[in-house]
C-alpha cells in the first residue's frame, strides 16, 4: 500500500537495496513504476539508493527510497544532504529489531529518535507513522505532499508488522487524495536557488538542467546555494531550515483522539502498538474504567496542541511503544508536566492489549 500510495502521489522514481522488511516496497515499485513511465533502480547499497533518489528529485521528479534500520544508518549522510539542500524526498523506514543488524524478521519501534535526530544540529524532519494498510496509503501521499510543499525530506516510519502484514482493504472507500505538485519558480525570474525574504518562507524550487543556473551544495550556503562560512546570510539560511517547519508545526498535526469525559488516565501510542492500545482502551471502558486514548501519527514535529488538549483532567499518562528505552516517551515528557508518566515497553514481540490493560490497572 505504501507503493500504491507513492504512485498515486506522483512518485516516478524509486531506488532501493534489498533489506528485510522493506524489500516488498522495492519490489512493488519495480512492478508498478515502469507502467507509469517511471523508473525503479537497483542500487549497490543504501548510500547510493538515497543519492539516486535525491538526484532525480533535484530535477523535479518525485522520488522515494525505502529501507530498514541498518540501511537507514547508511542513508543518514544523504538525509542530511536532502535537508540541507531542501530537496523534497520521501524515505520509508520500516523498523526492525536493532541495534545493528538486530533482527531482520522481528518488528520494533526503536528507530524513532534515530530517524528524527539523524542530522547534525537536530533539525526537525517530519515523521509520519501509519497504523494500518489504509494509512500506509494515505500517509504516504501526505508524506509526498509535505515533502513538496515544504521542500524537505519526510520520513514514513513504519515497522515490520505494518509493512509485511496482509490486510484486506476496500479500494472504493480509500479517500480520493490529489497529488501535490512541486512549487517551481517562474521561468526567467532572477532569484537564486533558495530565495526567501522571511526565514519561514519556502523558496520556490528550481530544477537542475533547466533554463536558469542552479547551484546546490550540502555545505553551509547563501541563498544562491554558494558555499559560505558564517556570513549573516548563511546563518539566516541555517535558521530558515528549522523555521520553515517550526513556524507551521500545527499544520503537521495528524492524530487520532478518543477522549473520555472524566478520564484520569490517558494512553498514548503510535504505529502498530496503537492498535493494541485502542483495543485495550475499548476493553477497559467496557469494564467501566474511564480512560482516554491518543494515537499519534505525525510523530514529528511533535503535535503539542493535540497533546495539551488530551491532557485536560489527566493524572496518569501511559506511553506504549515497542522499545526498551521509552523513546517517544522521552520526547513527550517535557509536555506532560504535572502528570505521572508510565512507560509500557517491550521488545521481541508486539505489545498486547492485555499487557496495556494490566499496566492500566497497576496501582500508583
Amino acid at each position, binding site marked *: 500500500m505504501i507503493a500504491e500510495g507513492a504512485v498515486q502521489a506522483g512518485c516516478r522514481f524509486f531506488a*532501493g*537495496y*534489498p*533489506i*528485510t522488511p522493506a*524489500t516488498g516496497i*522495492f*519490489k512493488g515499485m*519495480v*512492478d508498478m513504476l515502469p507502467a507509469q513511465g517511471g*523508473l*525503479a*533502480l*537497483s542500487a*549497490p*547499497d*543504501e548510500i547510493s539508493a538515497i543519492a539516486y533518489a535525491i538526484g532525480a528529485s533535484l530535477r523535479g521528479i518525485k522520488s522515494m527510497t525505502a529501507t530498514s534500520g*541498518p540501511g537507514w544508518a547508511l542513508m543518514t549522510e544523504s538525509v542530511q544532504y536532502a535537508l540541507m539542500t531542501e530537496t523534497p524526498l520521501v524515505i520509508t523506514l520500516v523498523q526492525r529489531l536493532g541495534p*545493528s*543488524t538486530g533482527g*531482520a524478521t522481528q518488528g520494533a519501534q526503536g528507530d524513532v529518535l534515530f530517524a528524527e535526530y539523524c542530522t547534525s544540529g537536530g533539525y526537525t524532519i517530519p515523521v509520519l507513522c501509519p497504523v494500518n494498510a489504509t494509512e500506509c496509503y494515505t500517509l504516504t501521499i501526505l508524506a509526498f505532499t509535505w515533502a513538496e510543499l515544504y521542500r524537505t525530506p519526510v520520513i514514513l516510519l513504519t515497522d515490520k508488522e505494518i509493512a509485511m502484514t496482509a490486510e484486506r482493504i476496500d479500494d472504493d472507500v480509500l479517500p480520493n487524495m490529489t497529488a501535490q505538485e512541486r512549487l517551481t519558480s517562474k521561468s526567467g525570474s532572477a532569484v537564486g536557488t533558495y530565495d526567501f525574504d522571511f526565514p519561514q518562507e519556502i523558496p520556490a524550487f528550481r530544477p537542475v538542467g533547466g533554463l536558469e543556473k542552479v547551484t546546490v551544495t550540502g555545505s553551509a550556503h547563501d541563498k544562491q546555494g554558494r558555499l559560505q562560512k558564517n556570513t549573516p546570510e548563511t546563518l539566516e539560511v541555517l535558521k530558515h531550515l528549522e523555521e520553515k517547519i517550526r513556524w507551521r508545526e500545527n499544520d503537521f498535526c495528524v492524530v487520532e483522539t478518543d477522549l473520555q469525559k472524566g478520564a484520569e488516565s490517558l494512553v498514548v501510542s503510535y504505529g502498530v502498538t496503537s492498535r493494541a492500545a485502542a483495543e485495550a482502551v475499548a476493553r477497559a471502558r467496557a469494564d467501566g474504567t474511564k480512560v482516554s486514548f491518543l494515537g499519534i501519527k505525525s510523530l514529528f514535529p511533535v503535535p503539542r496542541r493535540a497533546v495539551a488538549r488530551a491532557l485536560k483532567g489527566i493524572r496518569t499518562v501511559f506511553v506504549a511503544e515497542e522499545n526498551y528505552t521509552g523513546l517517544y516517551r522521552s520526547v513527550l515528557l517535557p509536555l506532560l508536566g504535572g502528570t505521572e508518566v508510565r512507560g509500557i515497553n517491550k521488545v521481541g514481540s508486539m505489545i498486547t492489549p492485555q499487557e496495556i490493560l494490566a499496566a492500566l490497572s497497576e496501582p500508583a
Partner: protein
Amino acid sequence: MEHVATSVDGMELVYERPSTLTDTPMHYCPGCAHGVVHRVLMEVIQEMGIQDRTVGVAPVGCSVFAYNYMNIDMQEAAHGRASAVATGIKRILPDRFVFSYQGDGDLAAIGTGETIHTANRGENILVVFINNAIYGMTGGQMAPTTLLGMVTSTTPYGRESAVMGFPLKITDLVAQLPGAYYVTRQSVHTPTAARKLKKAIRNSLEYQKQNRGTCFIEVVSNCPSGWKMTPRESNEWMEKNMFPFYPPGDLKIPRG
C-alpha cells in the same frame, strides 16, 4: 592430517564430519553450495591443525549463521564490512589465520570499496566469495553478479544492461591489484570441483602463513531457491550459464 579409521558396527568408517564443523543441522536450502563450501573449508583447517588459530568473519545474508557450523572464532560483521573487520583482526593478530566468507551482494555491491581496498593493501587474509548471482536471503533480488537476461524479483523481465548495467566480474578486478597474491575461481557442484576448491583453500592458507598478501577464492554457486529450480536443475543451469561468464580456473597464481 591424522586420520584414524574407526569401526562402526563392523564396518569401516571412511568419511566423517571434521571436528572443525559443529554437529548442528544447517539451515541452508536443499542443494545449496554453502554447506559443501563450509565443509571443505573446515576440512582444510582441521588438516592443517589450525582450528585454535583461525578466525573467520561472515556477513549478513545466507551465511549469517556460519558461526553455528564452523567451530572456530567467528564474527558476523555488518553488511559489506567483513573484509574490513578481518583487516582489523589480522593487523592485531598477524599470527592467526583470518578469512572472510562473503556473498556476491555483500562483497561486490555494498562492500565493493572494502573488497577492493583490502586486496589493494594486500591484507594477508583469505577472502572466500560465494557468487550465486542473486540476493538469496532477502528473497531473490538482482545482485551485481546477476547475468544478463536473468529473471529475479527485481528484474521480472530479465536483467537489461541498458537499465541495470552488466554483471560485475569483481574477481577479475581484484586480480589486477598488486596486493592480490593468489586469485582463483572454483565451484563445488561435483566431487572433483570440491577437491579443487579444497586445494585452493589449502594453498591460500599456506600463503597466508608466508605473509604473501590477499588470497581471493570465488566459488561460483547455485541458489536453487532464488533461481526457483531443483538442486540438479540449478547445477546444470549454473554450468550452462554461469560458467561461460564466470569460467572456473586460476586468475592469478604466484610466479615461479
